[in-house]
């Protein structure tokens, strides 16, 4: 099943480009109808869906409706999927206070729930690294630490997508299924992704996740407020990542990981607003970014209290 789907991803694109150019769409749909028997749960509409950036608002509405119906069919859950747009004058930034993060992983858990991750895989866009005080050796940071935290000799560094201004993952995508939005969020069109995983390999922060299986989530645990580019249940065989909870933050709300953080180690806001808390942090704390030398220009900052 997995293999069929993966290879079908690539041939689908090639087929759409090659044959679609020579046949009318209707004739094409008819011609490929037999193929739907092996691309089992993929409708003709889905098969022919355009790239996110090429969808007209009317087409988008149809897509959203189809996805809502699919979720109802597959998971029994009533969900609302919208496509909130970047707000003008907003560029998102995130900062994390390493002096007060206690490594409780509540943020990672909140992310898992908010984003409708497969329950069994325990997926989360956040990994919390435990490191010895006095070092900043990320490669040897421990993610599977146990026992009461915070340990007196350790500090904790949650790592998630850094929403780079110069994102290596975007550069390597062969079909442009991932790109940077105006408010700084690196988005993925799950319906356009062919699952080649180049972006996962290119990301120096290990921030991307692959859907090896179709996510299994109990109906009552599905987060009902969903975004096309963010937390809707992903199809099997596509890449996904932190979107700063686009479906919440583009409506002015704080991201799920911040709301779950008991210590207030996380600061989120609009980098373009001089009055914002995130700007206060950037202007008054000594901040740093991860792997600065790579030139990725993250929108995610870390700092210690003085």
């Amino acid at each position, binding site marked *: 099943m997995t293999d069929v789907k993966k290879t079908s991803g690539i041939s689908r694109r090639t087929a759409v480009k090659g044959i679609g150019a020579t046949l009318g769409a209707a004739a094409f749909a008819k011609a490929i109808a037999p193929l739907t028997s092996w691309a089992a749960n993929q409708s003709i509409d889905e098969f022919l869906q355009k790239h996110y950036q090429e969808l007209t608002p009317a087409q988008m509405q149809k897509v959203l409706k189809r996805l809502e119906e699919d979720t109802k069919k597959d998971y029994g859950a009533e969900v609302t999927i919208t496509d909130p747009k970047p707000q*003008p*004058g907003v*560029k998102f930034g995130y*900062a994390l*206070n390493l002096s*007060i993060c*206690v*490594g*409780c*992983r*509540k943020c*990672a*858990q909140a992310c*898992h729930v908010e984003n409708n991750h497969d329950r*069994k*895989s*325990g*997926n*989360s866009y956040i*990994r*919390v690294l435990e490191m010895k005080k006095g070092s900043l050796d990320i490669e040897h940071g421990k*993610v*599977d*630490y*146990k*026992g*009461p*935290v*915070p340990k007196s000799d350790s500090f904790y560094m949650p790592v998630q997508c850094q929403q780079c*201004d*110069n994102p290596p993952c975007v*550069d390597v995508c062969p079909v442009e299924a991932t790109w*940077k939005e105006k408010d700084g969020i690196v988005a993925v069109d799950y319906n356009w992704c062919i699952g080649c995983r180049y972006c996962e390999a290119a990301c120096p922060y290990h921030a991307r996740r692959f859907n090896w299986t179709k996510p299994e989530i109990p109906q009552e645990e599905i987060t009902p407020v969903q975004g096309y580019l963010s937390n809707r249940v992903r199809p099997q065989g596509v890449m996904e990542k932190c979107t700063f909870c686009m479906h919440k*933050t583009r*409506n*002015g*709300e*704080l991201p799920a990981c911040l*709301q779950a*953080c*008991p*210590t*207030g180690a996380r*600061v*989120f*806001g*609009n*980098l*373009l*607003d001089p009055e*914002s*808390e995130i700007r*206060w*942090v950037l202007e*008054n*704390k000594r901040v740093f970014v991860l792997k600065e030398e790579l*030139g990725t*220009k993250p929108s995610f900052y870390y*700092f210690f*209290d003085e």
Partner: protein
Amino acid sequence: MKPRPLLIAAILGFAVVLCLASWWIYQRSFASFEEAVSHRQVQIALDTGEAHPVTIQGAPTTPTVLADLSQSGRAPTEVACTTCHSTRTPQLAQRDSVQLDEFHQGLQKQHGTLSCLSCHNADNYDTLRLADGTPVAFENTMQLCAQCHGPQFRDYTNGSHGGMNGYWDLKRGPRTRNACNVCHDPHSPAYPQLIPVFPPKDVQLRKQKYGDSYPDPDQHAH
């Protein structure tokens, strides 16, 4: 004579390629950076309308204590501080719960050299008091903490310390913030150790790779 037009074409072609290449390099390396740093010129239409409120939660309006009434055969009950304190003379000399012969004996205090009455107001136990004697309502404990913990209070006011919920954009919705005492027991304010939730599962994958000698986090953490 003859190769001239060819040469010109070649030079032109080269120039075009050079321009395209430098434009590409510029786009890749500097344009995104400029975009990121040029925010001071960006015109933001700031909505000056009413901002939504920030509510501080977790500080009691009427402070109570859980009174052990077992000797009188009754279940423990929450009673307001003044219930007892209005009928008793304050023991101004006693600095610690260990010196008390009745009530509050088990109370653990690990808060520097402070005594009970450094914060509690002997004239009205339903309030607290600042170092200069000014009474403060329990709801405003932050003011009391701020006397000694200036940097933390500054960070709190600027949003980089203390749990919160709601909206980053106060023009679109309200926010709630925790009072200091939600996370820090004032009597023993160090943040307590806790068992981390949500152990990462990709360890399972490593286990497949390295065999059973790799420890399973699920078996110990809960």
